[in-house]
């Protein structure tokens, strides 16, 4: 049964940046169609983990990686062309990076690079993605404006729309709410819950409450090691397997 296997399987993953360890023997599964939150203090390896899933880690010259990451049962290292892997995984960065082109071109960039030329298909993609990211009503008359002219919160939703443009099976968000106001954050969280119906979502967040609101399961990383991963009912209770989880979630870490 393929569909029962985890969507992402991380096994014994270790990453060093110029000898400095960032991830240490991490083993973690992400189930199909779940929202997994990854929490942990700074330098615990959360972003590094995301970078290993879509092989962006390779663009960092000082990084050396060992261990395996499987997406949909296939070792990501076996993709001869990493862009084929990256097209299956939507990725959203902490600070929105609007590409220096129009809103329309921003959203259609990935499909166009993947070879889609049909204007009607691209038009539909723009409408679908901007609606999914709760941005359509605000920008439907500004599709030919530069993406970089939108406000910060709109740009962040634009990057989400862009990440959705290839109908990815997996969506990873790295602290998406850092540059976004609380109202927009709640809007995006609603969107993520809807998308989750046919998408596996990994959310890296510094906001413990966001993990609690949004995720089915939560993983706590600490200095590159997995402390605990479990259902939110457990992680956000007194019955955590590891005492540090309880302390971190309660803000008692010190």
């Amino acid at each position, binding site marked *: 049964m393929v569909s029962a296997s985890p969507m992402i399987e991380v096994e014994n993953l270790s990453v060093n940046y110029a000898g400095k360890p960032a991830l240490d023997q991490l083993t973690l599964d992400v189930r199909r169609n779940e929202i997994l939150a990854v929490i942990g203090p700074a330098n615990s390896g959360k972003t590094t983990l995301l970078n290993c899933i*879509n092989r*962006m880690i390779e*663009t960092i*010259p000082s990084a050396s990686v060992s261990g395996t990451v499987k997406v949909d049962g296939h070792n990501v290292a076996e993709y001869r*062309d*990493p*862009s*084929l892997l*990256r*097209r299956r995984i939507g*990725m959203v*960065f902490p*600070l929105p*990076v*609007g*590409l*220096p*082109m129009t809103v329309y071109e921003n959203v259609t*960039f*990935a499909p166009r*690079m*993947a070879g889609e030329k049909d204007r009607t298909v691209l038009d539909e993609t723009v409408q679908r993605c901007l609606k999914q990211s709760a941005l359509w009503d605000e920008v439907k008359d500004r599709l030919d404006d*530069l993406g*970089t002219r939108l406000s910060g919160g709109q740009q962040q939703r634009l*990057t989400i729309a*862009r*990440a959705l*443009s*290839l109908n990815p099976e997996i969506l990873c968000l790295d602290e998406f709410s850092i540059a976004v106001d609380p109202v927009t954050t709640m809007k995006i969280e609603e969107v993520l819950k809807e998308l989750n119906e046919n998408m596996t979502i990994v959310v890296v967040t510094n906001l413990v409450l966001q993990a609690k609101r949004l995720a089915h399961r939560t993983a706590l990383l600490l200095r590159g090691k997995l402390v605990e991963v479990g259902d939110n009912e457990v992680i956000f209770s007194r019955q955590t397997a590891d005492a540090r989880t309880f302390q971190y979630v309660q803000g008692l870490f010190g």
Partner: protein
Amino acid sequence: MNASPFATSARTATNRRVESVGKTVLAGVTALLILPLTAILGLLVIRGAPALSMEFLLEAPTAGMTAGGVFPAIVGTLWLVGVSLAVSAPVGIMAGIYLNEYAKANWLTRMVNLAIVNLAGVPSIVHALFGVGVFVLFLGLGTSILSASLTLAIMTLPVIIASTKEALAAVPMAFREACWTLGATRWQTIRHVVLPNSISGILTGVILQVSRAAGETAPIMFTGAAFYLPFLPQSVQDQCMALSMHLFTVSTQVPNVPEAIPYATALVLLSVVLLVNMFAIAFRTYLRRNRKW
């Protein structure tokens, strides 16, 4: 009653004085810079004006260079600049793209970069000797427009590579990362995002080399430029006259040249460079429209 928080203190007064002095000094230095430039240009115009005419632009030199015009030299300079940039611009830009976008940060890349910086500082007479040795003699191209242009291309290459790299490095890394994450290949990223946003900087580097290629005398003197030719070049295998070379000839090599001719020649050289640059700048402006981030 408390002092107003906006009242002038001794500190703010000092700051204001420093500000105004600093501004005056910087403006003064800028004015000093402009002065010799306008003086040179004024001198050229005043001294050269008597010789300037349509005939001067459209006729060949006559009477042993002491009369007639500079037309063959204008044509020769355009040949040399055109052919040399046709070689050095694409090669330099491609090398710059490779070095900035693809090359790994290892010792070999560092050596290559170091070599490029040093090459940019090599005196043009050394390039001239290299050109004679390699293009004229070894490759058997003879003294020709091709040899002279290739020598000029070698001379302008390092600067074009360096300015291309700089223009590419000015494009934020985050743009590239965003593209890669979206499944764009390295080349797609360069083609659709990096180049459109650095092309004006790259072209600025090329434009600056137009004046250098047109102005240098040493590299073309032994490789393809002639003192005097009774005909216009028909192909890159011919020799040609050149404005820079002609200026050198009429000011130092030929006796009894009317004073106005060298000045007028220099003025024409400047105008040709300016004209070529204006085309390049217009092209750059055309490419740059709507590009902002």
